[in-house]
């Protein structure tokens, strides 16, 4: 994966406009906020990857909060090494206090966190997942 292939947003508002706003009433989008330096984030990625590989009709987006100067050094090599198949987006907006509440007023900003947009309903899970089943459970509870 080259730097040019990785979708990057410098502003949260741009990210929201392009990625979140267009989500349709019947869609199921799972947006996981993570970073390569966040150990619990990395540990739960396989469950999100399994969802991408096994579950049709569910779309997973992995939004990395790695810093700009870590994209080429850390993020891209990580994506390649782990052969991530979910869509990976780099969100580079450092004005965290301005946009954390826009993801969810319930999010404290701690990583990892997962925003689920399912059939028009939004819910934020501030937790680490320990199995694919646990993740699917939370997704299905929103149906």
């Amino acid at each position, binding site marked *: 994966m080259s730097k040019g292939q990785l979708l990057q947003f410098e502003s949260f508002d741009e990210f929201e406009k392009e990625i979140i706003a267009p989500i349709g009433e019947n869609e199921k989008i799972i947006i996981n906020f993570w970073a390569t330096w966040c150990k619990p984030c990395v540990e739960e990625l396989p469950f999100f990857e399994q969802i991408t590989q096994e579950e049709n009709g569910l779309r997973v987006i992995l939004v990395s909060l790695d810093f700009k100067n870590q994209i080429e050094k850390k993020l891209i090599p990580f994506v390649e090494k782990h052969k991530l198949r979910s869509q990976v987006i780099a969100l580079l907006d450092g004005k965290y206090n301005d946009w*954390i509440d826009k993801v969810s007023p319930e999010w*404290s900003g*701690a990583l990892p966190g997962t925003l689920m947009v399912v059939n028009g309903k939004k819910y934020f899970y501030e937790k680490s997942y320990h199995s694919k089943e646990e993740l699917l459970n939370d997704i299905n509870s929103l149906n």
Partner: protein
Amino acid sequence: MKKIVTLLVLFVGITTIYASNGPTGYSPGDIATDFSLKNVDGSTVSLSDFRDAKGFIVVFTCNHCPYAVMYEDRIIELNKKYAPMGYPVIAINPNDPAAAPDDSFEKMKERAKEKNFDFPYLFDDGQKVYPQYGATRTPHVFLLDSKRVVQYIGAIDDNPQDAASVQVKYLENAINNHAKGKEIETKTTKAVGCSIKVKK
């Protein structure tokens, strides 16, 4: 005499209500709990030890989290600047070493020595203190006044990655306003950080 006793009981009752926290920890205006925690030098530290303090900069931080590490130098500077003014930094590691081995008490001692921490670096043994405060990540700051009333909660400033590019110093603004007896404009902020580590 009976009237005085009744008033006393009422008074104690009211202060107890204000001293307790909601399910998600403190909000500005709440009275934060004091504690008795082990410091890296082997002593036990409480806020009440600081008799002349005008306030306290309680910061939940740790060894392993890159965000916390990015703020270490700034925390050291904050103590240098504000402790003489009566606002000492009190750092607390909220993590369970069983879930985060780099945050063991021994590792805390090493880090404190390595970086010449001039302030208490306390171990939240049993993880009883951070839930009361409602700390959710590292680093996470709670500015208290001398009576432990919460003045500000959240991020130190608006740029974890680069101290030189900071535009808004949330914590310093809050301290400076408090010191002048002025209203603190921004009482809470949010920031990205590492979740607090609890053994599953």
